[in-house]
């Protein structure tokens, strides 16, 4: 059971959270099928650091964004929706 750092509650077991997947902006132009289907279906799916949305559904009920390493499951940053994204690009990552 990995721990996920909820920005409100602190580290909690991952089974308290709903995984909402890779963070991808919703296209503003909804008439472009290619664009829209890329938003719906195409995934980066990296083996490394990935930015995704989680909802602490079994806890405080709040959504947050996290930068998690998809191989080690380490989370190096979390932030609330709408807040400035942390700049982690300078840190070592694989």
């Amino acid at each position: 059971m990995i721990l996920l750092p909820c920005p409100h509650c602190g580290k909690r077991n991952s089974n308290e959270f709903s995984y909402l997947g890779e963070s991808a902006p919703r296209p503003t132009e909804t008439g472009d099928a290619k664009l829209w289907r890329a938003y719906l279906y195409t995934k980066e799916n990296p083996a490394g650091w990935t930015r995704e949305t989680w909802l602490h559904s079994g806890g405080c009920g709040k959504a947050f964004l996290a930068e998690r390493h998809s191989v080690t499951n380490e989370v190096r940053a979390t932030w609330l929706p709408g807040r400035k994204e942390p700049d982690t690009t300078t840190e070592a990552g694989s």
Partner: protein
Amino acid sequence: MPTSTRKGPASVPDPIATAMLARSPVRQSKPLRQEAGWEVSSADTGAALELADLTPITKVLVRASSSAVGSSFSDFGRARRDEAGHLVVGARPDEWIVFGKAGSAAATISQIEERLAGAEGLVTLVDVTHRDVVFLLSGTDARGVLEKICAIDLSDRTSPDGTAFRSRVAGVSCLVVREDRDGRPAYLIDADRSYGQYLFDVLVDAGAEFSVEVAGYTEVF
């Protein structure tokens, strides 16, 4: 722009004198009596570890931005008594649940409305007395019981008296509030009412190792 909806009928008024009986989802052990229109147990145990069904107590959900509410309410993750004896629990960010005496929803709501009058932004109050079941688990081994079904660290260092958290208890999302009684650890466990009988059975089962006994309704507010 006026954003408050406080003027709306926010609560279930307390029942008028009527034959209609309100019931907890948990089967009550005998002898029975009535408390503010609710059927409750008056079993008395005096055991070292007790489990009581406090479902009839008043529960009011308050939503507002923390900055607007200021210091009038407890912080998120903490619980404290207010002047009126209500237990005010920071249940979620920008969300509180206020526990009070059974049958006092209307009064509780008007007190809170008064206190929050003039707060900025959207403020809403919802009476959730009938939505939730509440148990009181108290006694020296209360932590031992909860540790069997809840993954949160309950030690004094991380979860001292006055701590509140939402987490899963035996697979059900619950609000757990620690408010010690007579120097003994005590936990209020608030959950969706439909899980009531299931959770009660689980608590009795987990507590068997520590000789838990089922106590009747006690007045804690």
